[in-house]
């Protein structure tokens, strides 16, 4: 059967994909530029069809704690917000990570710091990939560049989150949240039954099912010896994720002499700049990390022996560049170009930035 192609915003695609995944509950609070997630869910009324709960909480803090509670029962639960709202959720996210529970958090980033602006940004890279909340934990962080990926990463995020019992985040920007393009939605599947959850999530609070001990979900452990064991177990999980779940996409890398590294919709702006540059004989490639954590460090290290330099392009003051520099061990020059405050550079600006960094080299006749 031919899949139906639809035209919709990235935020709307998230809502449709959540219902089709068999998501059990969404808990959110409106904030631009992601309010369409909650609005679309309320318009689609999935509680009438799949039985999915959609709830506008009284605050972001309440929403993330509802997610914490739902996740503890083995349900597929999610929340979405934008930068200031995601900051409010950080305590809850740290607790969910510590309690080793699956959950999906969507951040459609806007310009900060503070209340900032409603225009697109990628300035929450540090927050998403380095913790955000307190303690040693990581989220699996997926960075969509297209409306199709907004839809696809809902399922991927939930699947990874359940596989490793750790929260996953879709880190999008205002562009991919607000733009419309073609999307093929995932096949709908039913929500898991209580029996399936009990069987697939023996750790969840679903009743004792003949066991002697209750399952207790907590992040509190006052005995340092035991708390260190908890930490070591988390680190073991993060190691497995780093070994198995790195995702990225490469464009024109085969013969590239220079590399641009960019994520999300900014990678698409860079791709257009690169295609224009290639028409003039300048061989630039693009690496687009899809997982921002785990980061494609090994691949970058490998590429660094073949290329002359890297430019990272981000809607921030230079955040991902730190991971790029660590990956290539500063063996080749790595520069940053970014706009802040909700300004989105166009392909021409990206090319100017590239020329400013590598101008002399890229004008050499041997290119």
């Amino acid at each position: 059967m031919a899949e139906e192609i639809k035209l919709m915003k990235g935020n709307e695609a998230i809502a449709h994909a959540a219902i089709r995944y068999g998501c059990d509950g969404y808990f959110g609070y409106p904030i631009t530029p992601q309010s369409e997630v909650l609005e679309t869910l309320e318009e689609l009324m999935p509680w009438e069809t799949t039985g999915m709960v959609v709830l506008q909480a009284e605050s972001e803090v309440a929403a993330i704690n509802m997610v914490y509670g739902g996740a503890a029962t083995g349900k597929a639960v999610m929340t979405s917000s934008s930068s200031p709202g995601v900051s409010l959720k950080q305590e809850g996210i740290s607790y969910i990570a510590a309690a080793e529970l699956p959950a999906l958090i969507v951040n459609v980033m806007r310009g900060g710091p503070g209340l900032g602006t409603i225009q697109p940004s990628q300035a929450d890279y540090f927050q998403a990939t380095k913790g955000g909340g307190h303690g040693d934990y990581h989220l699996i962080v997926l960075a969509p560049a297209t409306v199709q990926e907004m839809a696809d990463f809902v399922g991927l995020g939930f699947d990874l989150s359940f596989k490793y019992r750790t929260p996953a985040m879709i880190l999008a920007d205002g562009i991919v949240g607000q733009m419309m393009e073609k999307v093929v939605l995932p096949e709908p599947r039913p929500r898991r039954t209580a029996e399936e959850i009990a069987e697939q999530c023996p750790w969840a609070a679903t009743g004792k099912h003949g066991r002697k001990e209750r399952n207790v979900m907590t992040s509190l452990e006052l005995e340092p010896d035991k708390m260190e064991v908890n930490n070591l177990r988390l680190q073991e999980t993060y190691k497995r994720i780093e070994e198995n779940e790195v995702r990225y996409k490469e464009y024109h890398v085969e013969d590239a002499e220079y590399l641009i590294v960019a994520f999300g919709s900014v990678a698409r702006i860079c791709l257009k700049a690169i295609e224009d540059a290639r028409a003039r004989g300048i061989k630039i490639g693009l690496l687009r990390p899809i997982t921002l954590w785990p980061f494609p460090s090994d691949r970058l290290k490998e590429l660094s022996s073949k290329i002359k330099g890297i430019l990272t392009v981000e809607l921030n003051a230079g955040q991902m560049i730190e991971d790029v520099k660590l990956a290539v061990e500063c063996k080749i020059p790595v520069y940053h170009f970014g706009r802040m405050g909700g300004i989105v550079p166009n392909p021409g600006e990206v090319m100017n930035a590239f020329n400013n960094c590598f101008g002399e080299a890229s004008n050499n006749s041997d290119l």
Partner: protein
Amino acid sequence: MKEEIIIAGFGGQGVLSMGKILAYAGLMENLEVTWMPSYGPEQRGGTANVTVIVSDSPISSPVLDTYDTAVLLNQQSLDKFEAKVKPGGTLIYDPSGIHRPPTRTDIKIVPVDAMSAAIEMNNTKTYNMILLGALLKHRPIVSVDAVLRGLKKTLPDRHHHLIPLNEKAIDRGMDIA
């Protein structure tokens, strides 16, 4: 085929929905499309703009610095985007309220008095469809039939009786452009 379009004007002129209708028509023609709005407070009355790309191959950047075609509906938008039309491109504008008309000679400039035409049709809401007609006359990126099919698909049933009026407005735009 790849057409990179900017539509800009005041919030409330139907800038975003004109772009949306064009994008849906592209979808009907099995083309690749992106629709990237300015989504700031301009929707509530300031200047609004939308970038629409319609292409027969995958689209990389939804954000552009130059455009094949511009539909510019107020002075601010004209001041901002006239210079960004590619040489040989098309600039459509509504002369009402414009005191500094476009001056470039390397692009095709099409004044369309869409507001007067909309008033003649006794329905100022036809304004953006008149402009869409003007656009499609000079840049036949999608067929009028695809526009109408797109409208039918996206408008709720209770608004389907308005489709013939929209078709008339497109025809009117084609006539006056």
